[in-house]
């Protein structure tokens, strides 16, 4: 053993070591305190940020979409509160089973079930996923009663884009649909609201055209969330800003009326427009589709049948349909003749039923001919020979330039997409298009709106407006207001070189078409005094009439539908102070006087009775008014207004300018 240690020394060792331990403890606590200060002071900012990031979740609140209303404030597209069925993954022990059970009560397909299950798997399990919206009362009741057998499902209120006029306004409003991957990739950065589940954007029509305006601004709620993401409370909230309301120049009731009238045909379209402002009151196309189906998620088979329908329900024919104008083009040819001096009110031409050019023979529509006719008579009776003759004398270029000045052959920059330019042919056009020279025979054919000439119903309405308004170059428009900002519509300029005396002659012809015995649309005249209309029928050949057919006198209506003539009519009313112009195209409607003119008559009569031009597009936001209610009011008002067409002069939406082309009375 080494040296002995006394008890005293042993105690010293104990004391020393105990004090050493105490010192180590103090150092240890000091280290802990230092570490705490390092975390809380030196790195406090970093950790505070991390802690905020942990607890705060910004939740976007979808803005209500702006409404689309007609000129009276009647909603064409609104957000209707509806009942929807949702599923919550956390509460449905077996999603598949729950949804299959739901399938017994409401109509959902397997695609929907798969989509819902996929969506639910991507979000926290306590968040609901929409299964179906716009439930009927019966469906709601059935689901409610059977909820015990439907774990995880719940009924909730939501908003669905609804189109009260459905088919009638389908091509105008268009529809909304889910955000596609491409759109999300393109705009998702700037517009995070697009990634909200169930958010809809405009796909076509006004919904698409003014989507950015109607979309509104998303609100945001800062939510405090716990560790699994469940929202605990709201910290702050910025309310969403409702999208702008789009006010159209459309008169919804008139539009519906037009649509109903067109519905009797297999495929037809019509435009009613203000002759002086270009405001479009009606722009209807039949057949249409129900946009409500689209906003609620269209079943695949319905979509397929819409795509496959040969009468093209998805196309807005008043805008995109390009038709040979037929005899409605004769005003242009006649006006060109007057301007070129090849004809005058006094010039008469003998119509033997055909026009010979070299060895070619061009038939008048009336076998046997019209005999001796002047220009007014030629328009009235739609004598082809007269126009063959003057066209042959002046050439195609003279006709084409008049057609262009009166709004044919080019786009206007209309507020709906897919506007078509039509075709107004001339020598240059043909050379550029086919690399061939123009033939005289082609001038003759195109002069009566056949051959190469193509126009849209909208263009025909514009052409008519420019003829009857004294030669002002009105342009059509359909959007009166975006939000509170009214449209700045320039007063249309006078068409260069237009002569009112010539226009009067043309209008006299158009007046006699309807109002004088022997006119092609005499049967469709308006008898109410003061509301009389003028117009011009048109019958456009679709396939060439064969010699055989001509010899056998086969009636056009006996041919298969696809081979029948298109029926057209352009008109205006009232004749003493034209306000409303109208164009109607009935595809394969056999004859203008037979199927197009009666529709135009009804439209112009109803338009004058309702007199939408007398009312400015509303500024106030009483858009909550139910459409049916307002329709009734309008109906009452308009019946009181009967026989007071003078009112149109007080229109607020029109520049205060008296109609100039009174026409021959």
């Amino acid at each position, binding site marked *: 053993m080494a040296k002995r240690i006394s008890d005293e020394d042993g105690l010293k060792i104990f004391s020393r*070591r105990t*004090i050493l331990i*105490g010192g180590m403890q103090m150092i240890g606590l000091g280290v802990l305190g230092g570490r705490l200060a390092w975390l*809380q002071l030196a790195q406090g900012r*970093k950790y505070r940020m991390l802690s905020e990031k942990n607890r705060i979740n910004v939740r976007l609140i979808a803005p209500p979409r702006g409404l689309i209303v007609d000129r009276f404030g009647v909603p064409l597209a609104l957000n209707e509160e509806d009942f929807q069925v949702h599923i919550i993954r956390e509460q449905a022990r077996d999603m598949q089973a729950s949804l299959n059970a739901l399938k017994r009560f409401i109509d959902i397909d397997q695609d929907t079930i798969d989509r819902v299950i996929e969506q639910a798997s991507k979000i926290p399990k306590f968040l609901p996923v929409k299964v179906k919206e716009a439930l009927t009362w019966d469906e709601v009741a059935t689901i409610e009663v059977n909820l015990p057998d439907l774990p995880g499902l719940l009924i909730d209120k939501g908003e669905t884009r609804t189109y009260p006029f459905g088919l009638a306004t389908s091509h105008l409003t268009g529809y909304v649909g889910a955000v596609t991957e491409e759109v999300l990739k393109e705009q998702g950065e700037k517009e995070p609201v697009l990634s909200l589940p169930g958010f809809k954007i405009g796909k076509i029509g006004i919904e698409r055209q003014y989507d950015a305006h109607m979309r509104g601004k998303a609100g945001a709620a800062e939510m405090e969330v716990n560790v699994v993401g469940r929202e605990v409370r709201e910290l702050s909230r910025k309310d969403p800003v409702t999208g702008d309301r789009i006010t159209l120049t459309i008169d919804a009731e008139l539009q519906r009326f037009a649509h109903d009238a067109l519905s009797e045909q297999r495929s037809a379209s019509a435009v009613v427009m203000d002759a002086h402002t270009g405001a479009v009151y009606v722009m209807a196309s039949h057949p249409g589709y129900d946009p409500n189906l689209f906003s609620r998620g269209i079943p695949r088979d319905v979509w397929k049948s819409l795509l496959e329908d040969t009468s093209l329900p998805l196309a807005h024919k008043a805008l995109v349909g390009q038709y040979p104008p037929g005899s409605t083009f004769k005003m242009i040819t006649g006006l060109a003749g007057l301007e070129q001096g090849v004809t005058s009110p006094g010039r008469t031409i003998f119509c033997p039923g055909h026009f010979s050019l070299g060895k070619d023979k061009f038939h008048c529509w009336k076998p046997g001919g019209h005999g001796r006719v002047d220009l007014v008579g030629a328009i009235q009776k739609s004598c082809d020979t007269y126009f063959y003759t003057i066209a042959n004398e002046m050439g195609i270029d003279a006709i084409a330039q008049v057609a262009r000045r009166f709004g044919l052959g080019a786009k206007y920059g209309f507020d709906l997409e897919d506007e078509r330019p039509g075709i107004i042919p001339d020598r240059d056009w043909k050379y550029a298009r086919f690399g061939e020279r123009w033939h005289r025979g082609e001038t003759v054919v195109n002069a009566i709106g056949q051959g190469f000439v193509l126009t849209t119903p909208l263009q025909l309405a514009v052409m008519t407006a420019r003829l009857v308004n004294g030669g002002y170059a009105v342009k059509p428009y359909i959007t009166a207001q975006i939000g509170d900002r009214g449209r700045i519509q320039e007063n249309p300029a006078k068409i260069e070189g237009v002569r009112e005396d010539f226009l009067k002659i043309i209008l006299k012809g158009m007046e006699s078409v309807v109002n004088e015995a022997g006119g092609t649309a005499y049967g469709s005249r308006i008898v109410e005094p003061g509301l009389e209309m003028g117009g011009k029928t048109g019958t456009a050949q679709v396939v060439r009439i064969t010699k055989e057919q001509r010899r056998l006198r086969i009636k056009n209506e006996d041919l298969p539908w696809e081979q029948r003539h298109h029926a057209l009519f352009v008109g205006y009313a009232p004749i003493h102070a034209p306000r409303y112009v109208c164009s109607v195209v009935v595809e394969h409607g056999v004859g203008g006087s037979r199927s197009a003119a009666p529709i135009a008559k009804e439209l112009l009569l109803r338009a004058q009775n309702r007199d939408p031009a007398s009312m400015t597009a509303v500024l106030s936001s009483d858009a909550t008014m139910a459409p049916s209610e307002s329709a009734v009011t309008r109906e009452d008002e308009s019946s009181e207004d009967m026989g007071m067409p003078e009112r149109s002069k007080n229109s607020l939406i029109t520049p205060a300018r008296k109609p100039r082309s009174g026409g021959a009375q």
Partner: protein
Amino acid sequence: MIRDSLFLMPEQSLVQRFLNLNWVLIFLICCVMGVGVAALYSAGGGDMSIWANKHLIRFMIGLCGMVVIAMINVKWWYRFAWPFYIGVFFLLVLVEIMGHIGMGAQRWINLGFIQIQPSELMKIAVILCLARHFHGATPDQVRRLTFLIVPACIILAPVGLVLLQPDLGTAMMILMAGAGLVFIAGAPLWLFITGIGLAIAAVPIGWQFLHDYQKQRVWTFLDPESDPLGAGYHITQSKIALGSGGMYGKGLMQGTQSRLNFLPEKQTDFIFTLYAEEWGLMGGIALLTLFALIFLACLRIALRCRHNFGRYLAAGLTISFSLHIFINIGMVMGLLPVVGVPLPMVSYGGTAMWATLAGFGLIMSCHVYRHSKVTRA
């Protein structure tokens, strides 16, 4: 001699003993408990009934127990050391056997009315037993290696059993507290230096004996950010909570990390995090200062004690207590790997608190009977 006469001091009366209690220490303990109740009230979302009330009641019971222990003559504790150690040892064995037979890893014994954790009791039993063993030794004996075989067995036998549970944290705690006592008792310094050296050298070997979850904890400790949503989640969230508390904290009940459950085990092992998030650096330093004062008060008792048993017992228990604090707070701050060690008297949990208070009771008994003569067995 005056000192001798004091040894012969007759047994104090109950009142005398009560007055002789270390009231400063009791006050400090009550302060720490106050912190615990406040933190648990907050952890319960402002509801006393979830944790705080029960904690308070347990503390009251524990406090009474502590005073009773403190007023029992320290010689009885001296005599009680071995039976207590052996009893607890059997309980540990029992737990191990039950674990094998029944429900896998188990640390608890359910006595029906109470669940006890023998490993918690073993922390005290080892100190008690070692203090008794060294009490009778001369400084020379302590320096002899052969003399140290018994203490080594006293320490290592329960350490081995606890490791089997497996509870690495408690095993380390028993080992370190025991070693601390041996050091204080005067064992040669080189023993500890070589011991630490060997321990470091044994790390690669010991690594292979660790359970996967234990290995994971070590990895996570070394690099918590590597897996912030997985194994490193606890420590990352704990650091965020602490750091975001700042100088003055978020205020009572305003600790977002804990209230929104980002913080794991907020009422037990991570209670210090919750507290420091809500009370900030000021609160944290205050609590650390309380602990410092408790350490000093306890070591003062050890230094002022007139008998070796009391010296070793008080110092050993203080070391054990301080180890809990260092390991727990070091762990939540990311200084040490995550081991399941609660913060004494603040964390929710009965056995741990009572064991701690019983320890303080023994320390105070050493204080009340600092002048007593403890007879060698």
